[in-house]
C-alpha cells in the first residue's frame, strides 16, 4: 500500500532509465543521506563512529570495487587486500613527500597507483579465465605482500615497518592524525564514499557497466557484438583496483591511523569477498548490505548473548563469527545467490502489493 508505483507513469525514456525510477526509492535514499549527514552525528557516540560507521563505509567502498570486478565483470579476484595496500602506501608516500597538498587529493590520487598495478595483474585475463585468473590475483596478493615488507622505501625506511597517518587538515579542521576528531573523520569518509558511489553507480548503469555484464555472461557473444575483451576487462581491473586503493588509503588515514603490511594480507581479501557474496554480486546496494552485515556481525555476536544473560568469550566470538559467515555464504548460495540485495528487492516486491499476498 505504501510502496505502490500506481500513478507514477514514465513519459520519457530518461525517467524510465533512472537509477531510482520509483519515487519511494528516491525518498528513501534522500532520507538515508539526511540521516547519515545529520542524524548519525547527533546520536552516535565516538565508539559507534570509529568502530562501526567509519570502517563500515570504508569496507563498503572496497566491496564496491570488488563487486565491479567480480560481480559485474565476472573476473574473480582474491587480491583485493593487496590492492588496498597499494593505495595505502601510495597515499602515505605522497602525503609525506608533499605535505602542503590537501590530503584528500592524495587519497583520491592513490587509487590511480592501485589501478595501474591492477591493470598489470589483469593483463593475463586476455588468455586466462575463471579459476586460473583467480590464481593470478593470488600471485598479485602474495607478491605485493612481499613488496610491502621488503621495500623499505615504501615506509620511508621506518624501523617499525609500519606506516602512519600524520596530522592533516581540511578547511582548518584536522581530519587525519591523532588530533582528528571522530566526527571530522566520519564526514571525510562519508563525503568520499558517497561521491565515489555516485561515480560507480553511473558507470555501472551505463554503457560500460553493460559491457562488463556482457563480458561476464558470455564473452564470446560480447566479442561478436564488437566488444574488445581485453580493454573491457582491463578497465574493470583498473576501476576496481582504484576503488580498493582509495579504500586502503582511507583505512590508514581515517580509521586505523597506522598500518603494518599484514593488514593488507589475504584475510582482508577474503573478508571483502565475503561481503560481496553475501551482499549480492552485481549490485551496488548489495555492497552496502554486505559490508554492513559482515562488519556488524561480530559486534552482534558479542553483545546479543549479553542481552539474554549469557556470557561469551571474545575468542569464541571470533570462532562463532567464522562459522556463521561460512554457513551463511553456503546458505545464500543455495537459497539466494544474489544475496541480500535480491532479498531486499523481493521484500520491496512484496511491499508493492501489500496487504495482498501477490
Amino acid at each position, binding site marked *: 500500500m505504501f510502496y505502490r508505483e500506481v500513478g507514477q507513469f514514465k513519459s520519457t525514456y530518461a525517467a524510465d532509465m533512472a537509477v531510482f525510477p520509483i519515487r519511494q526509492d528516491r525518498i528513501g535514499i534522500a532520507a538515508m543521506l539526511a540521516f547519515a549527514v545529520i542524524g548519525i552525528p547527533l546520536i552516535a557516540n565516538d565508539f559507534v563512529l570509529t568502530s562501526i560507521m567509519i570502517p563500515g563505509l570504508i569496507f563498503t567502498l572496497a566491496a564496491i570495487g570488488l563487486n565491479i570486478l567480480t560481480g559485474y565483470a565476472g573476473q574473480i579476484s582474491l587480491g583485493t587486500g593487496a590492492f588496498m595496500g597499494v593505495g595505502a602506501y601510495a597515499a602515505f608516500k605522497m602525503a609525506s613527500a608533499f605535505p602542503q597538498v590537501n590530503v584528500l587529493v592524495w587519497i583520491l590520487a592513490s587509487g590511480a597507483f592501485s589501478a595501474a598495478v591492477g591493470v598489470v595483474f589483469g593483463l*593475463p585475463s586476455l588468455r586466462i579465465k*575463471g579459476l586460473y585468473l583467480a*590464481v*593470478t590475483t593470488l600471485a598479485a596478493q602474495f607478491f605485493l605482500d612481499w613488496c610491502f615488507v621488503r621495500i623499505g622505501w615504501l615506509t620511508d625506511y621506518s624501523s617499525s615497518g609500519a606506516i602512519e597517518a600524520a596530522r592533516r587538515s581540511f578547511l582548518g579542521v584536522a581530519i587525519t592524525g591523532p588530533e582528528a576528531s571522530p566526527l571530522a573523520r566520519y564526514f571525510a569518509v562519508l563525503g568520499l564514499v558517497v561521491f565515489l558511489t555516485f561515480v560507480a553507480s553511473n558507470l555501472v548503469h551505463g554503457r560500460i557497466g553493460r559491457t562488463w555484464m556482457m563480458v561476464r555472461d558470455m564473452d564470446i557473444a560480447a566479442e561478436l557484438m564488437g566488444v574488445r575483451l581485453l580493454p573491457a576487462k582491463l578497465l574493470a581491473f583498473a576501476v576496481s583496483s582504484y576503488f580498493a586503493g582509495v579504500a586502503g588509503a582511507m583505512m590508514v588515514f581515517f580509521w586505523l591511523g597506522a598500518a603494518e603490511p599484514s593488514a593488507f594480507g589475504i584475510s582482508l581479501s577474503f573478508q571483502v569477498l565475503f561481503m560481496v557474496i553475501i551482499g549480492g554480486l552485481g549490485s551496488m546496494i548489495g555492497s552496502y548490505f554486505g559490508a554492513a552485515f559482515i562488519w556488524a556481525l561480530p559486534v552482534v555476536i558479542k553483545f546479543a548473548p549479553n542481552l539474554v544473560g549469557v556470557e561469551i568469550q571474545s575468542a569464541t566470538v571470533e570462532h562463532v563469527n567464522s562459522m556463521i559467515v561460512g554457513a551463511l555464504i553456503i546458505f545464500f548460495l543455495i537459497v539466494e545467490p544474489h544475496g541480500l540485495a535480491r532479498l531486499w528487492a523481493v521484500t520491496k516486491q512484496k511491499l508493492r502489493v501489500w496487504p495482498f499476498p501477490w
Partner: protein
Amino acid sequence: MDLLAAIFVDPFLRMGTNPTFLIQVIWEGFVSGVLYALVALGFVLIFKASGVFNFAQGIMVVFAALALVGLHEQGIPAWPALLAAVGIMLVLAIGIERVVLRPLVNQPDIILLMATIGLTRFLVGLGEMVFGGEPKVMITEALGIPTGIWRIPLFGKNLVLKEIDMTAAAVAIAMVAFLAVFFARTKIGRALRAVADDHQAALSVGISLNRIWVIVWFAAGIVALVTGIMWGARSQVSFDLEVIALKALPVLILGGFTSVPGAIVGGLTIGIGEKIGEIYWGRLLGGGIESWLAYLIALAFLLFRPQGLFGEKIIERV
C-alpha cells in the same frame, strides 16, 4: 655487469663448489614438492569427479590432523585414534555432500567454488572452537613413523636426510600410484570419470551421484589426513597450514586440474623450483621470495599453455 654476473654466474658457481649442499637443497625441495603434490591430489580427486574446485581442501588437511591429535590427547591410543579420525573424515564427507553439494548440484562452477570458500571459513571457525587455536604437535612416534636422521657423506660433506621426509615421500608416491591405477582401471574409477564429464549423462546410466560424491570427498579426506600427518610431523599442526595449501594452486596449474600424475610432476617442479630459486637467487631480492615464486612460475606457464602440462585443451563451441 655485477648484476648480470650475480644472476647468471654466481648461483651456478655456488652450486658447483658445494654439490652436497645443492643436493641437500634439491632433496628439501623434493620433499616439500611431494607434500604439495599430496595436497594437490586432494583437489584433483574432487575436481576430477565432480568438477568442483574444493577450496576447503587445505582446511580439511588441518582439520584431519587436529582431529587425530585431539583424539590422542583425550587418551585414545594412536592407531585407534587414526581409525577414529578416518571415521570423522567420512562423517564430514557425508555432511558436505548433503548440505553443500546436493542443493547446488546444477549451479555454475563459480557458485560451487564460492560455496567451498564459505565451507573453508566454517571449518576454520569450527576447528578453532573445538580444538583450540594453538599449534599442536603431531603424534609421530605414537604412529610408528621413523624419526631418525641419516647422515650420508658425499663430496666431503654430509648429506642430512630425515627419515620422516623419506617416509613422507614414499607414502605420497604410493598414494599417487594407487590413485592413478584406481581411476584408470576400476569400475568406480570409471564412474568417477563419467561423473566429472557430465553429471546428467552419468545419472542417466544409473550412476548414483550422491554416493560417488561421498566416496570422492571421503577419499579426499583420507588424502587430507595423510597429508596432515606428514606436514604436521615435519613442522607442527596449525592453521597456517591452510594458507600453505593455497600453494597447491600453482601445482595444479602446472600439472592440470584433472591429472593424478600431473599433481606429482607439478608438485615436484614447484617444490624444487621454489627451493632452488630461493636459496640461489633469493638473496638478490632480499630473500623471502618463496612466498610468491611458485605463483609467478604458474602465471608464466598459464600465459603459454593455459591448460597446464597435462590438462585438456578447451575448445569453446558457440
